[in-house]
């Protein structure tokens, strides 16, 4: 990683923490959705189990979902989109840096700014709700690795979504579509195990599944070691694939850049 990538990530981090109010509200409302999820699933599962999850496992699943969704939604996709739509991309294109790498640095820097609140919230939830522990020390380590893959995956998906602004000239609808797909196919909304088999197949063929289902499955030991390593490999493959796809798309879209006005 070059010095300039780190500098861009640092700037994005500083910008994110410059707004204390937003930071505070994101923790507050992130925590609220976790509490709401816990209340609903406690009511549904009771002393039994659903889709192979008992109450302790479901608590662990939901807390992992809180952690991964806090990270996944912490990037500055709106800002990237606005720069394209408002024409500020003109400024970015006069800088001697690779456009995609620069945006990755900024995006991941913004995500890193949410790490303290994600860890704090997760630690508090673990202490208060006592979820199921990790299946093994190795499973815990692989879960951490799997969560780290969320950084490049989130950038890839968000960056591709933002690039569509060159065609759509508006980001709102694209953002809604991306959010819905992420929430649904990742298993953040409902665990995949509770979905019909065909929908599970669709989910496993998409990158979104690696945001929550993959780390939760590894943590809870729902997959054995070879399968866990396979999932990590799939995360790596998706990270590279999305990066390459974005590169190809950008090489075409940069020809279509239009910036009207002075």
């Amino acid at each position: 990683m070059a010095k300039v990538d780190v500098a861009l990530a640092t700037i994005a981090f500083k910008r994110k923490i410059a707004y204390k109010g937003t930071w505070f509200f994101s923790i507050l409302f992130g925590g609220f959705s976790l509490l709401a999820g816990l209340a609903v699933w406690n009511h549904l599962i009771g002393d039994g189990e659903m889709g192979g999850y008992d109450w302790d496992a479901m608590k662990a699943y939901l807390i992992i979902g809180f952690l991964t969704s806090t990270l996944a939604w912490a990037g500055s996709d709106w800002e990237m989109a606005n720069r394209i739509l408002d024409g500020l991309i003109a400024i970015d294109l006069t800088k001697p840096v690779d456009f995609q790498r620069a945006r990755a640095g900024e995006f991941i820097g913004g995500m890193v700014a949410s790490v303290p609140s994600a860890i704090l919230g997760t630690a508090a939830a673990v202490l208060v709700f006592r979820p199921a522990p990790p299946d093994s020390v190795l499973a815990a380590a692989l879960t951490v690795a799997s969560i780290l893959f969320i950084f490049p995956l989130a950038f890839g998906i968000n960056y591709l979504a933002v690039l569509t602004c060159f065609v759509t000239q508006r980001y709102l609808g694209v953002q809604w579509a991306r959010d819905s797909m992420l929430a649904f196919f990742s298993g953040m909304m409902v665990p995949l195990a509770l979905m019909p088999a065909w929908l599970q197949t669709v989910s496993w063929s998409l990158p979104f599944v690696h945001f929550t289902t993959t780390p939760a499955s590894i943590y809870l030991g729902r997959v054995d070691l070879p399968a866990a390593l396979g999932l990590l490999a799939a995360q790596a493959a998706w990270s590279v694939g999305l990066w390459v796809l974005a590169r190809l798309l950008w090489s075409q879209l940069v020809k279509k850049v239009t910036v009207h006005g002075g």
Partner: protein
Amino acid sequence: MPILEARSLTKTFRRPDKAPGFKGALKHLAQRRYKTYTAVDAIDLAIEPGESVAYVGPNGAGKSTTVKLLTGILRPSEGTVRVMGRDPHTERIANAHDIGVLFGQRTQLWWDLPVEESLKLLKHMYGVSDADYKARIAKFDELLDLGEFMPSLARTLSLGQRMRADLACALIHAPKMVYLDEPTIGLDISVKDRLRAFLRELVDEGTTLLLTSHDLADIEEVCERIVVIDKGTVAYDGPIQQLKAHYITTKAVNLILEGPADVPALAEKFPEYGWAAGEAPSEVVVTYESNRFTTAEVLGGLTAQLAPRDLSLSEPSIEDVIRRLYAGELTR
């Protein structure tokens, strides 16, 4: 060899062709129609190293689009651009190392961080050494009073401060070729004067400059050559002095006489000149064709015969020439 060369540079855009009203919106949703318009039409431009060129034209003439083509932001629809031998669009990153760009209407500062942070990030981007960075910041501080607002958040700056900070951002890496698009827009006179003095110094040091502005004082004070563009094509390209000499043939002398000026009598006595009453009763404005009379001749004759109490020469105005060029009254 030119530092910048554009040949038959053309940019066309597609605009939605949408009828007004609800019906028009529905029709456009069902059947999209577009119109193609040409923003820049086969422009040829060559700039030598060290030149300071004003690129002027009325709103919508294609000035900013040309700057975006020359800086590599936009891809030409037709024609070629070479800046220091490179295609600025396909070799964007290499080109960006050697150019500085300022868009007066778009800031390159990170809005929610101190100015200093933006400059430090640019230092990393351009690979500026610590020593060079310090020296340049010290110089910008001396000429632009940058120090007073370096620790301020960009969003708290006044427009003048923001523009000075943006100028520092555009020049922190000592670019060889600088593009300034409306650098004095919205600024008060004192800040404008300061920026112009700074730009003059930049040009004196050998930096090549392309400046677009609606403020003709920027052009006269900073540039030696002017390119006038209208409807995407070049209407004039040459030295500013030549433009004045070629198109400004009528000059004026203001005379203040000892007593009230009798304009009809003076017009009868000196029919070769134009005569008009001035602002005061004793003031009269004499106009003459500079290709027929020298200023010395006119002044010599008038002072000898009218013995005015005071007189002043009206400097030829480039503004009037450009206004007439825009209006199509003058041709190349």
